[in-house]
């Protein structure tokens, strides 16, 4: 095994673990250098590389390089670099080291060739990312991080159980196409579904991501959900059920996004919505669908990071990302506003921006396969994502009414990270062939036709017109300080109440049982005193004859037992 063949993820994990030990001045440089080294490792990785080790009597495939794992490997390492650059000023605390371990675990997980290796790194992403949430330091972040960790670890346990069943079914731990035909398949789909934020399994995302720090949320947005998408693409391509699950995912979060006040939570809902498109592409299972899912994951990591970075910069400078408190910030932070708009144009799939060349592959494939209703919902969600992420985010933060906040522009390293992400978004949108070359299956798709460009522009411009009309007529719901109940209500309120009730009941039972027990002990003590005490029946001196009689009776008893 050469250095180049060592899992690139381990380089990032090692750098993350070493970061707290090196002098403070070197930490930023170390964390910035690690993704560069890992990227070089990936480039040097021989085609179809396999690295296996023997452990616990099974063969563990630490590295299985193919186009699918490489595509995710590249983008995860790029995201790790962007995060390190964006978080350059954060030198203390566990956040940045944990972020690098988290990125490394995600990279190692996509190169894992077997389910056991996948499980190990799957759990490492869960723990490291929970540390990133907690590093924000507030009580809310602590609670959200705890809920997040419980759900992520549950996903890991389902994965472990699925892996064991799979081993029993097939005699192999290899992670390839699984499919939904067996109990193992169902468990694995559920494990991956939690990470992909399937409907009703989704709330950890909207709950925890917006509670992390300005830099932490950017880190979180890249890895966990896209690792889920990778696993789904590897194990469940062509599983038809995913088409309607994904369709549902594209649609329902956007209603919440429209009424949410915390702009980073709005973005968390739009993460959910974009994941839906990828899940549909995987469910279609066609070359175009799977390619579209991978390409869209790649593009999404960049534009979502860019949007979260712009909101992080706003949070850093103004101390809030509430729509109610912001407005008119383009005057103070023009560069951040510009980069935010590039991210917004990319997620909205404007021509020349990344979403245009990736999302359309999935939609075109859905139409080709005859999923007309699903296609209509996806088109609705496309208009909706422009509405809430493309317009609402930049509009309420940087334009709308001037909230009177005057602050400094974002720090230079944050602007540099945003500029790099923006460049990549435009680069992908302008030269899609470069991204298409990385996709796992053969690409036969031309995004730039006059018809496609015109359709998309019409859809977007009239969505923007709808927003303008609603704003100018006052129909658009104003931003309000509020919490919107989502599925997490079932465990944060109903579940918490049930648990509190159960605890009260248990306490009452304990008290009652304790009183009973104490009375019982007292009574037993009295009986012992009576029997064994100084005058008790067992403390008296017995006659020899009496003893002989008892021994004879006991022997007779033995005989009876033996012969019966």
């Amino acid at each position: 095994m050469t250095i180049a063949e060592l899992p690139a993820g381990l380089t990032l994990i090692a750098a993350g673990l070493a970061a707290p030990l090196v002098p403070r001045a070197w930490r930023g440089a170390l964390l910035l250098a690690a993704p560069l080294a890992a990227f070089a490792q990936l480039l040097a990785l021989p085609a179809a590389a396999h690295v296996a080790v023997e452990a616990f009597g099974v063969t563990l495939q630490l590295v299985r390089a193919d186009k699918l794992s490489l595509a995710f490997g590249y983008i995860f390492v790029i995201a790790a670099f962007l995060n390190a650059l964006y978080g350059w000023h954060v030198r203390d605390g566990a956040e940045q080291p944990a972020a690098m371990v988290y990125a490394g675990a995600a990279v190692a997980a996509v190169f894992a060739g077997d389910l056991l290796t996948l499980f190990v790194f799957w759990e490492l992403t869960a723990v490291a990312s929970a540390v990133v949430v907690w590093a924000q330091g507030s009580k809310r972040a602590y609670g959200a991080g705890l809920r997040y960790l419980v759900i992520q670890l549950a996903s890991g346990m389902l994965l472990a159980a699925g892996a064991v069943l799979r081993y029993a079914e097939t005699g192999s731990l290899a992670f390839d196409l699984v499919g939904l035909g067996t109990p193992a398949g169902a468990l694995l789909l559920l494990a991956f579904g939690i990470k992909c934020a399937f409907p009703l399994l989704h709330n950890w995302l909207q709950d925890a991501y917006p509670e992390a720090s300005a830099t932490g949320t950017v880190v979180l947005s890249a890895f966990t959900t896209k690792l889920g998408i990778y696993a789904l693409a590897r194990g469940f391509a062509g599983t038809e059920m995913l088409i309607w699950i994904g369709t549902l995912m594209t649609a329902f979060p956007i209603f919440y996004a429209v009424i949410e006040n915390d702009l980073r939570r709005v973005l968390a809902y739009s993460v959910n919505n974009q994941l839906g498109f990828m899940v549909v592409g995987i469910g279609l299972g066609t070359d175009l669908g799977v390619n579209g899912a991978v390409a869209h994951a790649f593009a999404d990591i960049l534009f979502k990071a860019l949007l979260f970075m712009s909101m992080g910069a706003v949070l850093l400078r103004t101390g809030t990302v509430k729509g109610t408190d912001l407005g008119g910030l383009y005057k103070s932070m023009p560069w951040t506003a510009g980069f935010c708009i590039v991210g917004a144009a990319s997620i909205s799939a404007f021509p020349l921006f990344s979403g245009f060349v990736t999302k359309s592959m999935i939609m075109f494939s859905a139409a080709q396969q005859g999923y007309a209703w699903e296609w209509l919902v996806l088109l609705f969600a496309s208009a909706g994502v422009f509405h809430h992420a493309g317009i609402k985010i930049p509009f309420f933060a940087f334009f709308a009414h001037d909230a009177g906040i005057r602050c400094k522009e974002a720090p230079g390293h944050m602007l540099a990270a945003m500029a790099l992400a923006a460049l990549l978004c435009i680069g992908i949108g302008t030269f899609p062939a470069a991204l298409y070359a990385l996709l796992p299956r053969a690409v036969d798709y031309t995004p730039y036709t006059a018809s496609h460009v015109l359709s998309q522009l019409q859809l977007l411009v009239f969505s923007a017109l709808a927003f303008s009309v609603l704003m100018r007529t006052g129909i658009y719901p104003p931003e309000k300080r509020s919490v919107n109940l989502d599925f997490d209500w079932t465990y944060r309120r109903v579940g918490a109440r049930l648990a509190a009730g159960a605890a009260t009941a248990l306490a009452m039972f304990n008290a009652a049982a304790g009183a009973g027990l104490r009375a019982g002990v007292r009574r037993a003590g009295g009986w012992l005193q009576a029997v064994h005490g100084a005058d008790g029946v067992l403390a008296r001196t017995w006659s020899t004859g009496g003893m002989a009689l008892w021994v004879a009776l006991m022997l007779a008893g033995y005989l009876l037992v033996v012969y019966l």
Partner: protein
Amino acid sequence: MNADDKRYWLDDPRNVTTVYRGLWAFGIALLLLDFVVHRHAEADFDGVFGFYGVYGFVACVALVLAAKLLRRGVMRPEDYYDDR
């Protein structure tokens, strides 16, 4: 107060109206292009004149109205989960 308090172009409501009207003009121009550009319809019905424009507009209005209804059901005070 300070130098940042200068008037920006968008501070004038008339300019915002100009942008708004420009957007309408752009949208209508895009609709008219339907007569020029040859369509490769993706589904059965999207070749109809103005399909994408109308769908985008109606979808967004419906989305916002539905979200307003949703707010009646799910909106709670900001400290809803804090009071224990």
